[in-house]
């Protein structure tokens, strides 16, 4: 039973570029959440997708956008990258209504030069 998978593992971009990160949820899960974890900090909630729509959003600018596909996989897009966007981006999946906690992937390490 595959867990949450994220790609790529590492990514290096320059300021002003755009990036797309991908996530496949754990089998049987229909909800995907994205978090940003800066060095030395706890994960910060970006947004959550369910039924292909953004259901909740944290305190992140519109440069951060996402998408969920019919197979429940998800993408996180970040435009106009800033140095401060350097972080580990985590995807977590869960099953709505199951009263079960979120399961996390290994993350994508994004470095902005």
């Amino acid at each position, binding site marked *: 039973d595959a867990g*949450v998978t994220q790609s790529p593992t590492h990514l290096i971009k320059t300021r002003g570029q755009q990036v797309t990160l991908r996530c496949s949820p754990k089998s049987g899960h229909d909800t995907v959440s994205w*978090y940003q974890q800066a060095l030395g900090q*706890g994960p910060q909630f970006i947004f959550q997708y369910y039924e292909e729509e953004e259901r909740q959003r*944290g305190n992140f600018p519109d440069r951060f956008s996402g998408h969920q596909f019919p197979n429940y996989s998800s993408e996180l897009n970040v435009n106009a990258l800033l140095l401060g966007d350097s972080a580990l981006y*985590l995807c977590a999946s869960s099953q709505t209504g199951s009263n079960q906690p979120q399961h996390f992937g290994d993350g994508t390490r994004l470095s902005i030069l």
Partner: protein
Amino acid sequence: AQSVSQHNHHVILSEAASLELGCNYSYGGTVNLFWYVQYPGQHLQLLLKYFSGDPLVKGIKGFEAEFIKSKFSFNLRKPSVQWSDTAEYFCAVNAYNFGNEKLTFGTGTRLTIIP
């Protein structure tokens, strides 16, 4: 808005010592509480969770935590730590629902166990 405080940023213990990591949260409603662990080079894993019922919850690898509602606390404990417990520990909270609402994390506690 929810917030979580973990006052111990880095804890260093010898093997077999007892462990208690503090976690306090701020939220006006009913909450679910979690402890996650991040071993070096690995993903966040759930140690234990509290949704309702017995405030003393037991998790994996001998960890337990006690929810004290009057103190807004959910401290993590282990009676005898092992070198393999070296990791980053995160306390998290979300609004009481079905457990998959957005998580608010603390800044984490780095635990180093000396053999």
